[in-house]
């Protein structure tokens, strides 16, 4: 009973109208900026030629290791390729791996978590013990182990990252299912005499998926980080693919002469992850009712 937080009753019913859009003005500046960055990156991924017309594979030993200039905004690499163009073309790799791996991980994690959480008993126990064991390994390490088994390459990296993230999502889903199942509203449905599967579909599933979608937005960032690391370690796509992690690995020998080789791919990777993380956190705050 604190007097400091008066109860919000909000007597006016909400209607759709001009006032409904006034909410847009309250979006924090950082979130708006992150949204713009994500839109830009999606454009880079979908139409790289529009933003960077130069061919990212075009070798030109004449122009190797040029510092950033008007002709080469981000400079050129050791083989004279335009770094700006390579970085822009690299967006599609990172974004598709981030999205694809997260989508697979969330879907499988949702299934496993739902089964474990709904079944309870021995099934739950068995699932959770396995997940505990898998969680003993850091995601990147597990992805590396998976790559060791199934081989290198873009698609395998995507799979490896997805597999490594599954246990995390499964655990979140399972604990959310347990929270929802013990919630007052599921008990209320039981008291009303609602059928079990209807309760599962109407109350348990939607209230589990909501938080999961928000969390998976945050997961995209970590998937992108993993993919950059795997490529850097030489387990991802092969050169001359313009992948950010790979570009950093290839350029590392020339850092003494050309700082820009090591700077720009990293800026793009960081921007991508920062923006998706900012958006994810904002979504999470919205769904928790904090924003």
């Amino acid at each position, binding site marked *: *009973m604190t007097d*400091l937080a008066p109860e919000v009753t909000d007597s006016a*019913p909400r209607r759709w109208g001009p006032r409904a859009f006034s909410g847009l003005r309250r979006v924090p500046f950082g979130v708006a900026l992150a949204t713009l960055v994500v839109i830009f990156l999606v454009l880079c991924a979908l139409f790289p030629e529009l933003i960077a017309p130069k061919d990212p594979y075009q070798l030109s030993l004449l122009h190797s290791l040029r510092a950033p200039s008007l002709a080469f905004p981000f400079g050129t690499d050791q083989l004279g390729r335009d770094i700006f163009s390579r970085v822009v073309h690299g967006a599609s790799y990172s974004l598709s791996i981030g999205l694809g791996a997260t989508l697979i991980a969330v879907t499988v994690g949702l299934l496993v978590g739902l089964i474990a959480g709904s079944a309870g008993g021995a099934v739950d126990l068995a699932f959770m013990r396995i997940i505990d064991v898998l969680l003993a390994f850091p995601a990147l390490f597990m992805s590396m182990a998976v790559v060791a088994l199934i081989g290198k390459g873009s698609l395998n990296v995507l799979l490896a990252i997805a597999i490594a993230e599954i246990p995390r999502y499964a655990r979140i889903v399972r604990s959310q299912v347990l929270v929802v199942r013990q919630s007052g509203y599921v008990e209320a449905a039981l008291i*009303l005499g609602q059928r079990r599967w209807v309760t599962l579909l109407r109350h348990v599933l939607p*209230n589990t998926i909501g938080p999961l979608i928000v969390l998976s937005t945050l997961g995209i960032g970590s998937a992108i980080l993993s993919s950059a690391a795997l490529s850097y370690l030489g387990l991802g796509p092969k050169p001359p693919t313009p992948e950010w992690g790979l570009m950093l690995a290839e350029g590392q020998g020339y850092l003494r002469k050309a700082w820009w080789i090591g700077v720009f791919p990293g800026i793009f990777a960081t921007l991508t992850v920062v923006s998706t993380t900012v958006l994810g956190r904002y979504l999470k705050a919205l769904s928790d009712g904090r924003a």
Partner: protein
Amino acid sequence: MHLLTVEDLSVSFPGSVAVRGLSFSVDAGQCVAIVGESGSGKSVTARTLVGLAGDNATVTARNLRLGDKDLRQLSPSQWRSVRGRHIGFVLQDALVSLDPLKTIGSEIAEALTQHVDLSRKEARQKVLDLLASVGIPDPQERVGQYAHQLSGGLRQRALIASAIAADPALLIADEPTTALDVIVQAQVLSLLRDMKAKGTGLILISHDLAVVASLADHIIVLKDGAVVEAGSPDRIFSDPQAPYTRALLAAIPSATTKGRKLTADTPPSTSSDAPGRREDGIALEARALIKRLGSRLAVDHVTLTLRTGETLGLVGASGSGKTTLARLLLGLQQPDRGEVTLRGQSWSGLSERQRRPLRPRIQLVSQDPLGSFDPRYRVMDIIAEALEIAGAPKSDWRARAAELILSVGLSEAHLYRRPRQLSGGQRQRVAIARALAMEPEILICDEPVSALDVSTQAQVLDLLDDLKKQFGLTVLFISHDLGVVHHVSDRVMVMHAGKIVEEGPVDEIFLNPRAAYTRELLAALPRLPTHRPFATHESRNDRTGRDTLSVSA
């Protein structure tokens, strides 16, 4: 000179005024009580008096002095030498008001050494003395324990010990007994009374007029940050001037309010005693129920008969097993032994599949209505789900929902709100409407009003009474509040440590308790002097004085 002088105190936060124009003074050995419902500004006042209203608060006052110290002029570091040293502060619920990671000894020592220079040994001795002085047995052993290892009463005593460690002249207690059971509450109040007798000035903040009645020398009634009435307890209880105070007093359920409405403005029930489908007999019966939770017998050989059309009250302290019993009766948990029968038919023995078609007949109104609503649902969806299960055709849902929402005293516009946007009382009405949608025979009310303010509680109790008559409901009413139970029940059962210690007609039990526990419970009940709820202006002059009822709350 007064111990504390407050003149024209106002506190505002950006966009809202929490307290306006509050004036009072406290002398040594005197108790001033500030009473109000949630949002009245009483806690803000308490915090302002120790300089902790918050960074975004604007505090103004014509005068605000502690002795000869002008509190308005204090720097943050001067405030720190006032807090604890000159003004002690006790919050409600010591489980969260004491640091769970520290021993109570170190918590009290911290309050002590902050203001007094003591050696380690001296401090330890002083802490032991303090523990003894607030009535904690075995101080030597308790001093090294943590808050979670103490019972609620001992914990609250330890909290008080830490507040008075540096021997402040003024003690502010903000709802010091709210989280406690009646018996423990009486003990803590008596400790506060002792301190008052020793000359400590006391400011007691509470939502409960009965709690302050016996302790206060001066009562201030706050509403929306403003004083609606102030005066001596004698005057306020016998001759309340402000309509709000009168309504507040009238809203307190007790023996004297039995059979009448708690709120003045609700019209008397139109369909009084219109029997819905009243028939004689036993609606629900439980035989020798036993339920073990962990190592503890939560329900221990409970036998219970709920007769058709009656309201059976179940009263007991927290942890007495009331809620577990309710869950057994609702078929949410299965008893280890014993059986529950519904209209003579098996109920607890059924499988969930067999029980499901019977479920609409027993519905629940819980303490936490918000938690019982799917967070994604609007009120309409909540009621529609019930109507769907009750078998109402989809085309009728809208009309039926409107009918139901009106019958619980809300308007149709509320159907399109989300429960989060409603107040606590409105949420409870929605929960009741949902239960009614099932057209139940039996309504189990588990602490339905304990989270509500007195005036909201009065409205909900009146509503339940109306609906019971209108629909011929049989009610099991569970509460820790003896006044509420007395007000609503025909018969009552007293539960203690999993057992029913006494049962019978409500007046008989409350007037002539036989079981020792019931006696202890009733003796501990804070007493409200009689009041004349709807005193007319003519009768205001012939003062009835302050005769205390043997049973009231």
